[in-house]
């Protein structure tokens, strides 16, 4: 049966070539859309690693300006940010306050290399205060979180997320290991005598996906904001956990308190829920726009295929009539029409798949996993077949309506 269908199509290969090309391009479009969709859905179902409800982010913008200028003294903004945190903590509706360097749900991020036994990994990271795990509800799965006594340590304690643990250590126990990158010759020559401090892993946490649910799985680690001594760093952002049910008007009260403590500074107060929503929108809008365009494109292709089939049925009335006259059932005829289209679609599909498979093979887009590609290719193929069957429905029904007599007296 299939061999016959293939032969039939092969005999009309010039007429079918255009349909093959069309299916080929449709498959590529679908493959792209499905890859993006599967990748994002896959990310969406992963845990975020923290709780953003009832948390306000306070950005102290001008603090950054002050510390990057050569003239400023590093100690005073650090002390000022600590005082701001204490003042906010004393407000009634506040359950907890912590400091962090880079806010969540924000396009900025810090990335650095870490290294263990020759394995080098680029990892996002953040600098956070001792209260951070409690305020953001970070889950520590191994080891411990930061504590005030860490100021006295000779090394910088860090906590790594599960993914960084896997990438850097495999099955090994990470606790107590140093992950500071070894300075290469180049920076030794220019960087002078200041060797980087040791970064020693003191704990492991599940995750902290600061860019929200649609971000990919990334290695991440936390460093600790030093409180005392000459190396003390300021909090550039405060995260404020308020009691559930705190009215929105609290924002203004918070802002007034902040301005009363530091009149010269600019503060930006945003609920994390709101920041998450704008981040989500920022990532979703282009995806949805592309999906909408792809959807219309596929509708167009489906309609085009209906047109082509319709015409081919109309032209082959005699042939179909002859088949009916020698005993073929209506079902057999409509299956033939459908089967022919499926054979042609498969040809286009194989061409498309051959190209699509190059993406995982050559690793064109590194951060998309092979599993995502596999699912995307299968989904795209399924959609193409679904589309083919739907477009063949009406024309193949039309074919069953051909009367044998009509075909025979045509000649």
């Amino acid at each position, binding site marked *: 049966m299939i061999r016959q269908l293939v032969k039939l199509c092969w005999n009309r290969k010039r007429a079918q070539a255009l349909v093959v090309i069309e299916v080929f391009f449709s498959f590529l479009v679908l493959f792209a859309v499905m890859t993006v969709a599967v990748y994002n859905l896959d990310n969406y179902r992963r845990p975020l690693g923290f709780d953003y409800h009832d948390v306000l982010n306070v950005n102290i913008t001008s603090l950054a300006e002050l510390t*990057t200028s050569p003239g400023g003294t590093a100690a005073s903004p650090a002390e000022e940010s600590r005082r701001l945190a204490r003042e906010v903590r004393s407000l009634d509706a506040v359950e907890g306050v912590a400091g962090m360097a880079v806010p969540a749900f924000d396009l900025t991020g810090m990335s650095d290399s870490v290294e263990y036994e020759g394995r080098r990994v680029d990892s996002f990271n953040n600098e956070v205060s001792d209260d951070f795990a409690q305020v953001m509800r970070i889950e520590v799965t191994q080891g411990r979180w930061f504590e005030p006594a860490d100021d006295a340590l000779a090394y910088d304690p860090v906590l790594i997320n599960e993914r960084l643990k896997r990438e850097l250590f495999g099955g090994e126990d990470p606790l107590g290991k140093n992950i500071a990158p070894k300075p290469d010759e180049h920076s030794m*020559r*220019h960087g002078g005598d200041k060797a980087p401090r040791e970064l020693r892993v003191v704990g492991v946490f599940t995750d902290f996906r600061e860019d929200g649910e649609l971000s990919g799985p990334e290695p991440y680690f936390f460093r600790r904001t030093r409180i005392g001594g000459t190396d003390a760093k300021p909090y550039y952002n405060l995260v404020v956990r308020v009691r559930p049910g705190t009215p929105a008007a609290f924002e203004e009260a918070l802002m007034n308190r902040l301005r009363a403590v530091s*009149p010269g*500074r600019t503060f930006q107060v945003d609920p994390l829920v709101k920041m998450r929503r704008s981040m989500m929108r920022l990532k979703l809008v282009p995806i949805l726009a592309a999906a909408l365009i792809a959807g219309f494109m596929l509708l167009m292709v489906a*309609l085009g295929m*209906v047109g082509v089939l319709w*015409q*081919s049925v109309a032209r082959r009335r005699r042939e179909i009539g002859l088949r009916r006259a020698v005993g073929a059932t209506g079902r057999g005829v409509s299956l033939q029409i459908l089967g022919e289209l499926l054979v042609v679609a498969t040809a286009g599909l194989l061409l498309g798949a051959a190209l699509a498979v190059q993406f995982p093979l050559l690793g064109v887009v590194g951060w998309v996993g092979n599993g995502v590609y596999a699912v995307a290719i299968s989904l795209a193929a399924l959609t193409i077949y679904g589309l083919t069957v739907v477009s063949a429905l009406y024309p193949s029904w039309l074919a069953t309506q051909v009367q044998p007599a009509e075909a025979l007296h045509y000649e």
Partner: protein
Amino acid sequence: MLRNYLKVALKVLLRRRFYTFISLFGIAFTLVVLTVAAAFLDHVFGAQPPETRADRTRSVFMIRLTGAGPRITTFPGYALLDRCVRTLPGVERVSLFTIQEKVVTYKDGARIEIYRKYSDGAFWQVMDFRFLEGGPFTAKDDEERSRVAVINATTRRRFFGDQPAVGKTVEIDGEAFRVVGVVEDVSYLRLVPFADVWLPIGTIRNESYRTAMEGNFMAAILAPRAADLARIADEYRSALARIESPDPTRFTRILGGIDTPFGMLSRMLFRHERFDESRPGELLGWILGIALVFMLLPTVNLVNVSVSRILERASEIGVRKTFGASSWTLVGQFLVENVVLTLIGGALGLVLAVLVLGGINDSGLFPYARLALNGRVFLYGLLLTLFFGLLSGVYPAWKMSRLHPVDALKGGLR
């Protein structure tokens, strides 16, 4: 003759409603996507108020610090621009301003988000803002640290409910400013001029920006002639090369360039080792390439449908040939049919594109964005569709018209 063709064309299109619908759908849809994409690019990068002198205006966006420490790409600080851009010879005007920053103000308990930009007095001469009332603040205002502000129409409405605002006081980030001018809203997508409120640089509370090499400043220059731009860009690069790093343990070289916003995008996208090179041509090539690839599928579809449409009418062609129609007459007829079809599809696409653009403008996705139809791109798209429509419709018709009438009557090519 032509009138007859038109009449026949319309009749044929109406009789074969399904094919007509598929063709129209494909043509209109392709044109809508192309025109909306072009309108978007034009809105972000094209010359329009307040950047009307785009041919002579360039901006300094980001710099890259390289050397011993990690490579940092950031906005330049005031001190760097003051030293490297304000001193450029042969430039008509130079303006320094900050990137916009969101500040929150509470008015009667409601939260108002405002984008604030600090600028110098020259900003208003480099840019070509349309003032609804009042005027800009001046270099003198900036020097004397006058607490004056230029606001946009939306901010005026939010604070004063469309009443005249000049002379009144607005509170921005806990500070009071006297309004001196109100300008039309500027789109969020315009990188250089966008803000809700413009304040003099002199009123920045914290003085430390004056010595900073990295920070949140940008600069715009206005050259006397477009031909001077290349020279000015070279001089800016050599000025950057002369700057001594304030902290050689972090970086030793500063790279950057003077760009159009489009050039800046190409600089950021193609992460060349040499950051001081922008490649707008390469980016344009990519965009055109993507547009071409996008057009492939609708084109193949259109060709497919056209071929089917012609094949179906084989016997009609046969009859006309039998009664003495020449090949040219037949091709002419199909030509007219295709042109009519494409023009109807084009008109449909035009209407839909206007609706889509209006929808994007009203969605509030991009504050103050007013995307407008780009006639030139629409015309190109239409010509391209016409070309493929003709190719797909006329070629099979030509082949059919050469057939022997008997074969054509029997159903045409096999």
